[in-house]
């Protein structure tokens, strides 16, 4: 991670309703599932509740700082925190033992809704749907583009497994002969005005890894075309998480 000031001495800032910052996450117990919070400039923000592998936003980790990129919503506070929505979270890779705050349950912070997945057994499903073990492409028309989105400085992780499966299935079902992959390196404009840059070679690594994974899954009979691009300069603090991506075009 590299922190720099944006153009003209940190004069460029995200919009005022955006909160982009790095902080220790805080976990607060409730009578059902725990809440995840973070503090920034004296205010507490609600990040997410405990979910499971199928949720679009999954909780951060104690022992690591987290990059929060969110928008202040007008929803009622949850667990005492201002709700950020939409929200992207990135667990920082280096360990930070100072991130160790666990708060006990308090009646005033209990959830006012039933969590999609209770802390114990569920009612027979994951929070947001079961994985599709054998995805069939809606259409096999070529070309088709897929996008993988990453955490800051991140590569493929658990949440990419199903999308990779979908790409694999599509290539096989469509009879495609070429897979073009472009990996991007991006940055995040923080609310402080600092620009947080991803590793310089992450775009290349993202492209190469996807190709390697597809080959490892048996997709060896197609031609791979790899590119990488640096879009760090486009960070404006609005939707920087969307820039951390790889685009896979199947032809």
């Amino acid at each position, binding site marked *: 991670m590299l922190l720099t000031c944006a153009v003209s001495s940190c004069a460029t800032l995200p919009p005022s309703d955006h909160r982009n910052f790095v902080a220790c996450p805080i976990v607060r117990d409730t009578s059902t599932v725990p809440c995840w919070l973070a503090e920034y400039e004296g205010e507490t923000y609600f990040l997410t509740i405990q979910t499971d592998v199928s949720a679009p936003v999954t909780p951060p980790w104690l022992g*690591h700082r987290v990059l929060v990129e969110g928008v202040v919503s007008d929803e009622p506070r949850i667990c005492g925190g201002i709700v950020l929505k939409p929200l992207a979270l990135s667990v920082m890779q280096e*360990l930070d033992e100072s991130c160790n705050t666990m708060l006990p349950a308090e009646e005033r912070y209990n959830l006012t809704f039933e969590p999609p997945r209770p802390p114990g*057994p569920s009612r*027979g499903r994951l929070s947001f749907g079961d994985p599709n073990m054998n995805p069939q492409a809606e259409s096999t028309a070529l070309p088709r583009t897929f996008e993988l989105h990453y955490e800051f400085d991140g590569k493929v992780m658990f949440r*990419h497994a199903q999308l990779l499966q979908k790409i694999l299935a599509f290539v096989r079902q469509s009879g495609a002969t070429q897979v073009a992959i472009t990996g991007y390196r991006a940055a995040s404009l923080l609310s402080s005005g600092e620009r947080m840059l991803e590793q310089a070679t992450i775009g290349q690594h993202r492209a190469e890894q996807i190709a390697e*994974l597809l080959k490892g899954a048996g997709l060896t009979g197609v031609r791979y075309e790899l590119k990488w691009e640096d879009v760090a300069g486009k960070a404006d603090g609005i939707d920087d998480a969307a820039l951390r991506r790889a685009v896979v075009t199947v032809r």
Partner: protein
Amino acid sequence: MGSSSAHRGNTGYVLNTTFRSSAPAARTRYASLALLALLPLAHAADTPGAATNGIAGHVPAQNRQAQAAPPTASSTVPAARWWVPGDGVPLAPYIAYPNAHGQLGILNTSGLIETRGHPFFEPIGKNGRACVSCHQPANAMSLSVAAIQARWRETGGKDPIFAAIDGMNCPHLPPDDPKSHSLLLERGLFRIFLPWPPKAADGTRIDPEFDIEVVRDPTGCNLHPKYGLKSENPMISVYRRPRVAANTKYFTHHGFGVFAFIGKNGLPAARDPDTGLPSGMNMLADARQPTLATQAIEAAVTHLQFDGRLPPEQLERIVAFERQIYTAQVFDNAAGDLMESDGPPGLGVRNLANGREGLLGNNITNYVIPLGEKWHQLPPSDDPEDEARRSIARGHDIFMFRTFWIKDVMHLNTVGLGNPAKRTCATCHGMHMMGMDIANGWMDIGTTNLPWAREEPENPWNPRDAQLPLFKITCKADVPPHPFLGRVIYTQDPGRALISGKCNDVGAIVMQQFRGLAARAPYFVNGSASTLRELVDFYDRRFNIGLTDQERDDLVHFLSVL
């Protein structure tokens, strides 16, 4: 030829004739695996893929060491409840064996098996062992340390399970000295030797993300000039419990959670070299073999010192047998019959054989181990059998519903739950009827990694020496550190990382099934829990659960009837 034997338990079939073969049978040799060592070197860190010829890439190196180790002179003395390789006793369709908690059932769903000439039961390698040597029916198709010790006494250490290749701490040690077999005799551990650096399924070399250093080598094997890390065939030795060779439909399923990319990290799953289908990778402690067939090929080489590749017809017979054999506890000394027709639907070996595989059981529409309502609703009484059943039901409910903070578990807290996660035992142990992970099941809860692994601080008054090796793992600067252990990790067994070469797999171990626990102590991959109580105590200590004595008793009771 011909001797009496007693392969039966309290309710078993009467079988009273045995035939001992005079020589290892079916020793058909195919082209030496050593030839397969001549494979290209390439970077393949994220591509486990599938073995091109059915033999995983690490096996040829193992074969070289297996053939280099001396075959131990062994003899096979028939003993009650001990299956001797090649003795020709038919395996009855159903047998019950006594154990400390009650009785264990072995159910062969295809009926009586003629073991004469059967490759699971014949000593097909050169050390006198058969598969059954270490997968004994009385021990839930695994091997208890009590049975190992009894076998040592009965045979004076001559049983083939004490073979030099892996039944000794290292093959160079004197074979008649029990100290040479201390890990097997005291903790039920066999030596698993794996090439370093690791090899992908196609034999290409994997460039590991970390450096490994031997900090402690009490067995002498990891630093041995012939068998160790610096030998001309570099090998790392770790010491592990044999796993249950039964109930296999469950952990080889193609249902929930098994697809081409591993749901925990997005990397490609290992594939069946015959069908190309992805594997759930739940068979061995480090998931290094994708199918029963590929596992059998490796086991013949490493454990039986079979020099070659098992012929297809023998492989088919081994796999078919492993697919038709089921084991579970069938009688509990306190709770009585576990196979009553109106009893808990998740107990007993017949329910197990009839259960559905590939189901996520961590929910209330489909329990991990279905107990039903009857034992939960027993009215208060002084009947000790009723109280035992209530205890089992309470133990089940702790397993399913008692929440605690699960923290710093690699491949659990990193997979969408957050760290920590407030969940239950059944969160990880979610496979219906089995209690394994439904998907690719390796995690690190600390059974082999410090600081949680069983280690005793040294002091001048402690006469006990450390038994297991200790490795120092240093993650390279160009990869992220292990999320919970950082860049330097000390471990007794790097687990999955010995196969993947990945820093975050260090100490990650594929969890074992819950069946037949009463018959196969000790527990955990390194035998570090000698009883079910110690196993429960480990979790209580590791996760600060705060179990009461009563809750511990109930959990132990629940686990002992599975």
